[in-house]
């Protein structure tokens, strides 16, 4: 049975998501019946499945919720906000239970019981044992010798597919059977309709047989026949009809305390799954493309074969070969794109967590918030999506907690009472961009700056641009909430959000206008395996710089160079100073050229820091496949992986943020972007402080 568990869990979690979604969108005063039906069906399915697969606790709990939903859908119960809220809580309980069954751990007995109580209270006194029509007044009577059965099917009984002969056979299995047919009702042959039943039988069944077993044979046709079962009385004593008390076949199995399955803590979230659902259209597309590949291969095979038999160089043959190769390139690219799309799922899977979150949080914080989601169909890699969920949840919490003001504050500020949180996702370049914007209070720059100064992150006299100040919120230890509300700021800070996003190869930054709101902009690669890169030459080696990190490439003009304490170089790029990183030095490669004039500098950004990397040459921009250095070797600082170039050689992929770290560690002060000139003797660099 266990082989079906995986599917059951998957579809149940999906069902719970559907329930939750519909519940959240339910218009209490004017509920859509189709919606209620959908919710009911999901609960019903989960109940049925969990009963079948032995997950009794869920079956039992869900039954109560299902009863409530049943009443709601057939109109006997009004749909109230209270009911919806309790049902939402039930969804949470069911999710937790499913997780416990799936991953092990202990059931949250108290919470589950509490929510169940709420459901039962709502249902009324008979709550838990409602609709208990499974009661059969079973007469526990056993005749010692047998039974006389009179079976007279109604005319239409055959039309339900019930076959008297089958029933006879079933009876024959219970004991010795003797059957006498009564054909008195048969019409004339001419008038006989073969679909009608006009026969009846007198059956004698001898043996030590339980009446229940006989009743069971006719269970299905109870209403479609006349049935009499009388015991064969042989002895003088007649066994009195003992009316048994209704053995209540409670449709809820006895509450069993689920033993803790494992000592491991129950995982709260769904976690990663090892399987993925793929639309069949994507599969068909790949099949087609592979078909084309096969054709191209045949074509190349032929062209190559032809050429090898030729003794001389043949122009046409060469062209054919080149044509074939071009086609191969097309096929490969198309297959690559197509296959990558398999791992892509719409971001709605992540966005779907948000409505519930907003609903709960706005309630808790007494704030009014409207949620707008755009671009839900934008697709991204499944693994990236699974990992972006938590950071996004944190950002939403943050927006509701610190961003959007209370209704009173908003009105006082001349804003509408209800704040708006907007989620927007779209593709840009080879990346997916997720914007989380709110029309709240924005980031209090003064508070952030003061905190940063107090922490020593920023010098007392250092001036920072607005963007730089806003970016400070991503530094660890900089939570500026007056009191750490229990909603956010619980050790899961913005720095963790940035770290997590960075580990996915992405970036996050914030733009804010005080009083008006803030936008968090997350950029993520579409896939973890492929990178858009700029090939550069450093010394005799080729490196790959991720395009997403590159701001621009320029030629160094010595006039714009300056030094800090004689050690580092700074470059004046328009109105800011960026540190100059010599790639050859960072990587300890031999280099004799210390002159920087007219050298190529790639201006990059990593983790909010800008820098300029000196390279020897800019080569092509191309998509590269990321190969792990750690599989057979180990992690190298400043290098995020390797790739294999067209000529078969290995090129290392630069980790920009890592390189900046190494640069810092080599004894150079933090290269934030100061506007005031560095202390030095370059008088022409003197600028007024901002």
């Amino acid at each position, binding site marked *: 049975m266990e082989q079906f568990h995986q599917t059951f869990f998957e579809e149940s979690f999906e069902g719970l998501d559907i329930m939750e979604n519909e519940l959240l969108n339910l218009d209490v005063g004017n509920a859509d019946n189709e919606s209620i039906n959908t919710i009911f069906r999901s609960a019903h399915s989960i109940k049925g499945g969990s009963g079948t697969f032995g997950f009794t606790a869920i079956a039992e709990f869900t039954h109560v919720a299902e009863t409530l939903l049943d009443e709601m859908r057939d109109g006997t119960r009004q749909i109230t906000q209270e009911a919806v809220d309790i049902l939402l809580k039930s969804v949470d309980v069911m999710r937790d239970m499913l997780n416990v069954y799936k991953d092990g751990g202990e059931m949250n007995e108290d919470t589950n019981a509490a929510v169940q109580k709420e459901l039962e209270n709502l249902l009324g006194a008979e709550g838990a044992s409602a609709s208990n029509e499974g009661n059969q007044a079973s007469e526990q009577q056993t005749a010692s010798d047998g039974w006389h059965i009179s079976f007279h099917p109604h005319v239409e009984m055959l039309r339900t*597919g019930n076959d008297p002969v089958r029933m006879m056979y079933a009876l024959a299995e219970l004991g010795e059977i003797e059957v006498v047919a009564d054909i008195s009702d048969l019409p004339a042959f001419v008038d006989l309709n073969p679909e009608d039943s006009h026969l009846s039988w007198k059956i004698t069944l001898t043996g030590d047989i339980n009446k229940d077993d006989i009743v069971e044979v006719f269970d299905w046709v109870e209403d479609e026949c006349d049935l009499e079962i009388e015991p064969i009385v042989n002895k003088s004593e007649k066994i009195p009809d003992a009316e048994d008390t209704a053995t209540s076949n409670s449709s809820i199995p006895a509450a069993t305390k689920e033993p803790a399955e494992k000592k491991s803590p129950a995982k709260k979230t769904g976690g990663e799954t090892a399987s993925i659902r793929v639309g069949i259209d994507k599969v068909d597309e790949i099949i087609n493309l592979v078909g084309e590949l096969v054709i191209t291969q045949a074509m190349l095979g032929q062209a190559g074969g032809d050429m090898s038999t030729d003794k001389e160089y043949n122009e046409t043959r060469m062209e054919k070969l080149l044509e074939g190769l071009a086609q191969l390139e097309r096929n490969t690219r198309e297959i690559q794109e197509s296959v990558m799309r398999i791992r892509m799922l719409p971001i709605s899977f992540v966005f779907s967590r948000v409505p519930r979150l907003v609903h709960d949080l706005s309630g808790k914080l007494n704030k009014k918030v409207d949620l707008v989601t755009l671009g839900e169909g934008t697709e991204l890699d499944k693994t990236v999506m699974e990992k972006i969920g938590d950071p996004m949840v944190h950002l939403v919490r943050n927006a509701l907690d610190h961003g959007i003001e209370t209704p009173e504050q908003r009105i006082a500020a001349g804003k509408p009472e209800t704040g708006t949180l907007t989620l927007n996702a779209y593709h840009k370049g080879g990346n997916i961009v997720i914007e989380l914007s709110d029309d709240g209070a924005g980031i209090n720059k003064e508070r952030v700056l003061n905190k940063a100064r107090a922490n020593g992150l920023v010098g007392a006299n250092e001036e920072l641009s607005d963007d730089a100040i806003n970016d400070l919120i991503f530094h660890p230890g900089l939570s500026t909430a007056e009191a750490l509300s229990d909603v956010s700021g619980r050790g899961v800070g913005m720095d963790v959000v940035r770290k997590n996003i960075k580990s996915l190869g992405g970036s996050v930054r914030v733009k804010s206008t005080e009083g008006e709101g803030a936008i968090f902009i997350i950029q993520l690669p579409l896939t973890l395996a492929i990178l858009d890169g700029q090939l550069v030459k450093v010394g005799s080696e080729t490196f790959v710089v991720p395009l997403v990190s590159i701001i621009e490439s320029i030629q160094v003009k010595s006039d714009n160079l300056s030094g800090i304490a004689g050690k580092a170089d700074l470059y004046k790029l328009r109105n800011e100073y960026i540190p100059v990183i010599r790639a050859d030095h960072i990587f300890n490669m031999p280099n004799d050229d210390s002159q920087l004039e007219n050298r190529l500098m790639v201006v990059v950004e990593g983790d909010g820091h800008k820098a300029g990397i000196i390279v020897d040459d800019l080569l092509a921009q191309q998509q590269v496949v990321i190969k792990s250095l750690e599989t057979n070797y180990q992690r190298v600082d400043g290098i995020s992986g390797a790739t294999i170039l067209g000529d078969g050689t290995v090129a290392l992929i630069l980790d920009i943020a890592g390189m900046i770290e190494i640069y810092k560690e080599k004894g150079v002060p933090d290269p934030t972007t100061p506007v005031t000139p560095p202390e030095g003797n370059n008088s022409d660099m003197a600028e007024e402080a901002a």
Partner: protein
Amino acid sequence: MASILAVDDSASMRQMVTFTLKGAGYDVTEAKDGVEALQIAKSNSYNLVITDVNMPNMDGITLTKELRALPAYKFTPILTLTTESSTDKKMAGKQAGATGWIVKPFNPDQLLATVKKVLG
């Protein structure tokens, strides 16, 4: 070998039913709702139809009615999957023309026993 059409919107239930019945030597075809089931039933023939009641697009009761309207399925055994507590569902099924019912939750043995009872 007898062929069975199993209809349920729950994939795990379908899997379980198919696995159990195929293991006993029956031919099993799956459908995820009444609409799909009706379509499949029209272009193939089955000795038995087992259907869940609550399904989107077309529920089991309606499916039963629709099947009975087809000449090929006038007398084919049709069983509905119902929960113990809903006698009205059992009756609704019968009124729609179902042969009988299988009570949920059921284990594979119960399923097999019932199928045998019906198919012989």
